[in-house]
């Protein structure tokens, strides 16, 4: 029998030994069931069980639970133990409910009552037990129940140190579970902050964690902590390790406290006060110096603790991003770690360097290590370290080294671990597009990428290749040429066939004069792959064939033969059958001119954020997400992200339903589509997006959309559609008559808040005087933004319905963001501008709770549809959003920058907007604060 401390519960030890002696899983189960029956009987029959026995049985239940069995009784006995006046019985009771409790509500009240009794007791060890239990369970009800008691314990002068420590972390847990039900009195703020100065290092250590969380919620209220944190930090790093007795860990003074303080400071910009700032810089300098000193011990604990502080200091340096000497020193230090024999250090150095690469001050310094990093990619034995190396190469890539880095990554891709291939493919695709000087190079890389890692090329990647080719006239013939060559390979990845098929359909004519790639040869080459492909790819190829009919009338007969072939015309796949039928008919009945119009070359795609960046952000699924990590795509959200293989039948169907639902305003929903054909259906009907996905719906109409229904009652429906041209909006109003009689004497006007000094210049064409039953009329015009405005214009519509005059007034939801134009910039530029906008009224910061599930992509979409850019890779924290836009008014152009930082834990957002014109930031922030 091993060492049993206190020799408390013999019966428990015997039981554990029995379990361990069981020879088989079945025997173990038998023994457990026997014990469970025994305990159940004891609990039921023997009302006179004493505390000790209850404790013993509850402990056995706990043990059985920890073996992985479900426990569905004994809760009441455990709760009874809470009210025992014996410490050890209480303690086991608390342990049981902390570990097992999925409590029912009546039980909860009982528990809370017991906790309250203990918290109010005079005995600190009872208080601590209760606090620990609250911290372990941390339920909303507890936050409400103890909203006063626990903070009092924390700041009261009478509380002993260990209770203060528990109280601080207990509050922290409650704050995390339900920030809104825990209301901290602002009078306590100063006293909470001052815990940072507490003589007892344990109290300070516990308190920093709490303060860190409170700061995240309310940075302004807790601003005072910066000063205290810096001085505390400075006292620790400048003293000798011998000063801290037991708080020195392997010759490193108070590493836990140091790291927490350094993290606390990362919630704020660099201190404004020059003396605090220089004191902080000295601290950071000292930490960097200490890293150069010889080790005081060979134990890994010593170097780990020292480097833990160092890495956190580097994080702070990166966060402040203003002291170039510190940044470069940090980079050099990490460079040394890249060669260290400790895998952990190499891993962390690569990770930290990624962040340094994003800073303008240290980007160049990071690039010096390119070769070492490439070596790491080739020689590291640990896949997670190699992954970090890939991340760093991605981060340090710029125009000067892109060709080398992309080449190295491509080479590595051929042997890379399967787990990281998809991400690598995305990264290569992004880099080669971003830094392409010559788009031929880009295309070569992309085709090579598909060739060597076709299975890992996601849809977004090949969509993007096509978008780039469609948008760049100068590479289209080259694209056709290499796509054709790629198809000649004996084994061709299906993704390659898709890309090549699409490109030849559009631009095959550009290489048709070459005798090696005549129309017939192209057609036959493509068709030789046809039977190897999946139905979706075949559908795409059928579209290409159709386009061939237009490009090369001489092979029309051959294409028609294929379409007519049973395997297509009577295919069991509905999509293929439908396409074959429709295309065949189209080719038979249409004149060449009609065909030429229908099958016209694709217009350029609008420049948007590359879907690849979105995809890359998606790559790391959240814990609560389903294991596959695929977030379902929202219909409508993807409207023009790439060529679509929409299911024609369903598509038509949807459109039909929509027509009925929307009544007259069906045309409004087509705005999002910009002529991109949904493969087969576009010639017959304009494509239509499904009504926007729910997350984009906003109470503020038009905030994220360019078309919407802005008014509706039983008689009339009014819709709007806007198109933005810098400071001028082209506006179309749609008035739909929902009744069976005429609406007559129509009039419509827009009035401004201040007619004498208008912010908007409105120029609408006269409205038609009547609307037929169930019909719709359109009124077009322009609205020009003269200067930035806050008050919405009013729309006034009047008409007669069955000879009764009707008047409708409502605010026209034309928010100022409609005049924002996206601006792209790199991170240097972004931060340069950001720092320049530092006057008080140029910035507005809002902190607000999340109203919707905190989904990265949805946020990103909203920001994008708000009008400004969503720039990936600017913020060191990939969860944050940054972007920029230009607000066009006739009077001036106003630069707008924003940063949106989600805090998933607290379910809060912090939105910071800076604008070149004072006051505008506040207006924009107001528009957005309830939208996430």
């Amino acid at each position, binding site marked *: 029998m091993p060492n049993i401390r206190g020799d408390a519960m013999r019966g428990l030890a015997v039981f554990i030994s029995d379990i361990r002696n069981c020879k088989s899983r079945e025997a173990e189960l038998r023994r457990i069931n026997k014990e469970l029956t025994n305990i159940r009987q004891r609990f039921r029959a023997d009302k006179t069980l004493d505390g000790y026995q209850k404790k013993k049985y509850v402990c056995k239940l706990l043990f059985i639970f920890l073996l992985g069995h479900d426990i569905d009784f004994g809760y009441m006995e455990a709760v009874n133990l809470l009210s025992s006046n014996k410490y050890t019985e209480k303690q086991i009771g608390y342990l049981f409910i902390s570990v097992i409790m999925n409590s029912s509500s009546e039980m909860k009240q009982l528990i809370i009552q017991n906790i309250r009794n203990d918290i109010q007791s005079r005995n600190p060890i009872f208080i601590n037990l209760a606090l620990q239990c609250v911290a372990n369970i941390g339920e909303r009800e507890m936050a409400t129940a103890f909203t006063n008691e626990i903070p009092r314990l924390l700041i009261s002068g009478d509380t002993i140190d260990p209770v203060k420590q528990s109280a601080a972390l207990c509050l922290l847990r409650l704050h995390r579970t339900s920030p809104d039900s825990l209301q901290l009195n602002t009078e306590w703020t100063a006293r909470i902050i001052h815990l940072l100065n507490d003589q007892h290092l344990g109290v300070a250590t*516990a308190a920093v964690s709490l303060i860190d969380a409170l700061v995240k919620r309310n940075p302004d209220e807790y601003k005072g902590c910066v000063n205290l944190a810096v001085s505390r930090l400075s006292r620790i790093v400048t003293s000798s390790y011998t000063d801290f007795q037991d708080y020195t860990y392997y010759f490193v003074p108070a590493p836990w406290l140091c790291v927490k303080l350094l993290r606390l400071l990362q919630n704020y910009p660099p201190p404004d006060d020059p003396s605090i700032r220089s004191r902080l810089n000295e601290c950071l300098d000292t930490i960097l110096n200490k890293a150069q000193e010889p080790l005081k011990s060979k134990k890994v604990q010593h170097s780990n603790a020292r480097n833990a502080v160092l*890495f956190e200091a580097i994080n702070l340096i990166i966060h402040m991003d203003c002291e170039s000497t510190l940044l470069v020193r940090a980079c050099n230090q990490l460079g040394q770690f890249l060669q260290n024999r400790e895998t952990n250090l190499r891993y962390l150095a690569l990770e930290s360097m990624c962040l340094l690469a994003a800073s303008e001050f240290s980007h160049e310094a990071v690039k010096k290590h390119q070769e070492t990093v490439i070596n790491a990619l080739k020689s590291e034995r640990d896949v997670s370290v190699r992954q970090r190396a890939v991340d760093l190469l991605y981060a340090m890539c710029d125009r000067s080294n892109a060709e080398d880095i992309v080449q190295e990554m491509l080479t590595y891709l051929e042997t890379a671990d399967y787990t990281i291939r998809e991400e690598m493919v995305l990264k290569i695709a992004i880099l080669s597009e971003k830094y392409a000087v010559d788009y031929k190079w880009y295309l070569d890389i992309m085709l090579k990428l598909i060739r060597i890692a076709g299975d890992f090329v996601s849809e977004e990647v090949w969509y993007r290749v096509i978008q780039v080719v469609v948008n760049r006239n100068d590479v289209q013939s080259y694209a056709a040429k290499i796509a054709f060559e790629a198809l000649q390979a004996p084994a061709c990845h299906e993704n390659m066939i898709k890309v090549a098929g699409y490109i030849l359909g559009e631009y095959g004519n550009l290489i048709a004069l070459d005798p090696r790639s005549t129309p017939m040869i192209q057609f036959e080459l493509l068709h030789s792959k046809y039977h190897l492909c999946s139905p979706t790819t075949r559908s795409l190829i059928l579209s290409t064939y159709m386009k061939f009919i237009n490009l090369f009338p001489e092979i029309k007969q051959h294409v028609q033969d294929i379409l007519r072939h049973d395997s297509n015309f009577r295919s069991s796949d509905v999509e293929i059958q439908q396409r074959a039928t429709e295309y065949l008919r189209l080719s038979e009945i249409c004149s060449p001119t009609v065909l030429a119009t229908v099958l016209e070359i694709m217009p350029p795609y609008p420049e948007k954020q590359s879907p690849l960046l979105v995809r890359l952000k998606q790559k790391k699924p959240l814990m609560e997400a389903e294991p596959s990590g695929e977030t379902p795509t929202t219909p409508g959200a993807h409207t023009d992200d790439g060529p679509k293989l929409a299911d024609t039948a369903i598509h038509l169907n949807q459109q039909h339903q929509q027509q009925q639902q929307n009544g007259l305003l069906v045309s409004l929903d087509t705005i999002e589509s910009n002529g991109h054909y949904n493969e087969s259906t576009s010639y017959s009907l304009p494509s239509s997006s499904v009504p926007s996905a729910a997350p984009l719906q906003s109470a503020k109409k038009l905030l994220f959309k360019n078309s919407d229904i802005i008014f509706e009652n039983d008689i009339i429906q009014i819709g709007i559609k806007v198109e933005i041209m810098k400071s001028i909006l082209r506006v179309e109003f749609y008035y739909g008559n929902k009744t069976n009689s005429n609406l007559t004497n129509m009039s419509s006007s827009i009035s401004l808040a201040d007619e004498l000094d208008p912010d908007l210049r409105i120029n609408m064409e006269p409205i038609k005087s009547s609307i037929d039953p169930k019909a719709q009329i359109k009124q077009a015009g322009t609205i020009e933004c003269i200067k930035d405005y806050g008050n919405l214009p009013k729309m006034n519509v009047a008409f007669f319905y069955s000879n009764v005059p009707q008047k409708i007034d409502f605010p026209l939801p034309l928010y100022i963001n409609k005049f924002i134009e996206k601006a792209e910039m790199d991170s240097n530029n972004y931060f340069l501008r950001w720092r320049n906008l530092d006057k008080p009224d140029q910035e507005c910061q809002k902190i607000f709770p999340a109203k919707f599930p905190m989904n990265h992509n949805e946020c990103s979409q909203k920001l994008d549809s708000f009008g400004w850019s969503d720039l990936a890779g600017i913020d060191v924290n990939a969860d944050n959003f940054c972007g920029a836009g230009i607000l066009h008014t006739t009077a001036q152009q106003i630069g707008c920058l924003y940063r949106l930082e989600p805090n998933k834990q607290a379910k809060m957002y912090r939105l910071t907007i800076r604008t070149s014109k004072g006051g505008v930031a506040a207006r924009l922030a107001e528009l957005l604060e309830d939208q996430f």
Partner: protein
Amino acid sequence: MLQFILLFSRQGKLRLQKWYTTQTDKSKKKITRELIAAVLSRKPKMSSFLEWKDLKVVYKRYASLYFCCAVEQDDNELLTLETIHRYVELLDKYFGSVCELDIIFNFEKAYFIFDEFILGGEIQETSKKSVLKAINDQDVIQEEELEEKRSVLEDLGLA
């Protein structure tokens, strides 16, 4: 912030679990199963860190036991390693060269030590002396209460 701590044997048997966020039993079991498999499949020379879902996992093996902590993205990995080490030191000091069996037979003590050292997923007290003092104080009370019980029994003539 620490999300959870798992102690498990080389054979993949879970010895101790401590969760600092609310999870259903089902998801606890699932996470445990997946994570144990992930850690056990790692080779010795690999780093002690593991990207796992949106968390970072830091682990270290002591004799037959793996100590494994899941922390958030912005937590400090090296310090988490030392948090593990400090806990091991506490166990070692308390039990006197701790072994797996000590933790099995005294699992409640292992929990009590956790609660003195880490609370709500954050370090509460890093001083080894302070933590051990708190635990020893508990043991003293336990002894006293046992004494009481014995003397009551003796009074009744039952001992």
